[in-house]
């Protein structure tokens, strides 16, 4: 009888603990959301990039990091070196396990709000990207650091990489806290699928995350021309030449008359 009573007490305690935990977790984790005003970016004739708004509810007092990336892949770039007096292409470097696009936004400097382990685990920051990149044929660590720095410079110059700390604004609406950021989507980002992830941070640890996808695709005339160029090169070439000839002769005739 005694044992039965003990078991009953234990069962009730476990149930209460579980339900309290469940309640707590719903308070701490379920609030984080990531909404965007556009999941699909269409590239048309006059496209020059876009503005994407990312927003959502967050837990009061938490810090946030938003990361936008393309899937990891391989980038081949030519290395410039000095031969005699001249700077020229001296070889090719392969950068493996790096995204083509990488943007990071945060409420504070990421190093101040996250532990290095957490940053590496979720690939947050250039230093954690450096941890996972494989640069061939580079072997020495000093060389690796040098070429990774050059790689980031090259990507930032191309408008495809960027880190903007203190760029997310958080506002209070009643009892709820909401974050918001307007991102200048670069026109250099090629068509493809991109992922935006928001991380909620407390005590240097990521406590929750939410994701949304952004797809970039060509539309209308841009799509027609791109398809023709890649699928019907001969006809595309002939049309390009004929139009050029017509414009060239046409303009000379206009000038002749005037």
């Amino acid at each position, binding site marked *: 009888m005694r044992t039965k009573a003990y078991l009953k007490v234990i069962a009730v305690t476990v149930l209460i603990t579980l339900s309290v935990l469940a309640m707590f977790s719903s308070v701490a984790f379920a609030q984080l959301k990531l909404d965007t005003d556009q999941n699909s970016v269409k590239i048309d004739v006059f496209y020059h990039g876009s503005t994407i708004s990312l927003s959502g509810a967050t837990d009061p007092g938490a810090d946030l990091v938003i990361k936008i990336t393309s899937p990891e892949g391989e980038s081949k770039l030519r*290395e410039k070196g000095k031969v005699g007096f001249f700077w020229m*292409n001296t070889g090719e470097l392969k950068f493996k396990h790096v995204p083509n696009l990488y943007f990071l936004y945060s409420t504070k400097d990421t190093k101040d709000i996250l532990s290095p382990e957490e940053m590496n685990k979720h690939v947050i920051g250039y230093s954690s990207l450096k941890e996972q990149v494989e640069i061939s044929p580079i072997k020495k660590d000093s060389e690796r650091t040098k070429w990774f720095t050059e790689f980031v410079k090259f990507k930032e110059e191309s408008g495809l990489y960027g880190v903007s700390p203190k760029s997310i604004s958080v506002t209070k609406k009643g009892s709820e806290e909401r974050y918001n950021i307007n991102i200048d989507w670069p026109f250099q980002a090629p068509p493809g699928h991109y992922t935006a992830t928001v991380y909620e941070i407390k005590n240097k640890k990521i406590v929750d995350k939410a994701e949304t996808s952004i797809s970039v695709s060509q539309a209308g005339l841009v799509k027609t021309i791109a398809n023709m160029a890649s699928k019907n090169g001969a006809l595309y070439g002939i049309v390009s030449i004929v139009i050029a000839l017509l414009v060239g002769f046409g303009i000379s005739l206009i000038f002749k008359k005037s």
Partner: protein
Amino acid sequence: MFLYLPVALTSVSILIILGIGLSIGLLSGLFGVGGGFLITPILMMLGIPPTVAAASGANQMVAASASGTYTHWKLGNVDFKMGIYLLVGSFIGGVLGVYTIAFLKLLGNADFIIKLTYVVIPLTVGGYMVFESLQSMRKARAGVTDELTKEESGFKKFLKTLPFQTDFKKSGVRHSALLPVIIGILVGILAAIMGVGGGFIMVPIMLYILDMPILVVVGTSLFQILFTVIEVTFLSAYTNHTVDFTLALLMLIGSSIGAQLGTILSKKMDAEQLKILLALLILAVGIKILSELTLSPAIHLTV
């Protein structure tokens, strides 16, 4: 206002591209050069990949050279006979050039030799032209006419001994038919190595070795360029898919108008002024390439 380029996968300012086209057209109408050595680096600065820049540059040049050739032809400035001989030569040269590159690569220092060609050729050609122009200006000021002082050089005497001498009426010169073909071959090889059309090498050669009058040089060079750029455009579109027609269309509207303005301007300038301007342009290209090659780049990686 911006326009998206479907093949280059980037967006550009419409006004900037029209302006680039206009300037390149002006140069080609004035001097008979295609401007390939200028277009590619300028477009690359706007974030366009080098292969797309070169192929679309050739595509727009179809319009500029058609526009310029037509107007120069109407003015009686195109020597078709000379143009066709040079074309045959440069076609053979283009094929030989591809083998020359393969041979240089075998030797292991292809890139270095190519870069050296990029610097040495424009600096030598431009330098010689400036020197020559200054000399004839000095003589003109001293009141000495060219005919009296100009003794035929040994090289020119040698050219007269070559077989198949024939008249090129439009240019008013008599040469061996072999001469333009050989020149075409040599320029074709150099152009293939340097990856440009070769107008800025061909024009001085037509002036100083073939002794053609400058306006006929410009017209004939444009006629020859027209065929070269048609071939390059088709091959690039067919094999590499690198022609961005949106980009080319914007540039060619500018360059066809530019070519007309250049042709009108070329009629208003005297031959010596034209020569010295061309020489300065070629020298500037050489100096620009030299500085690019010797100054440390901001980023040590490139596409």
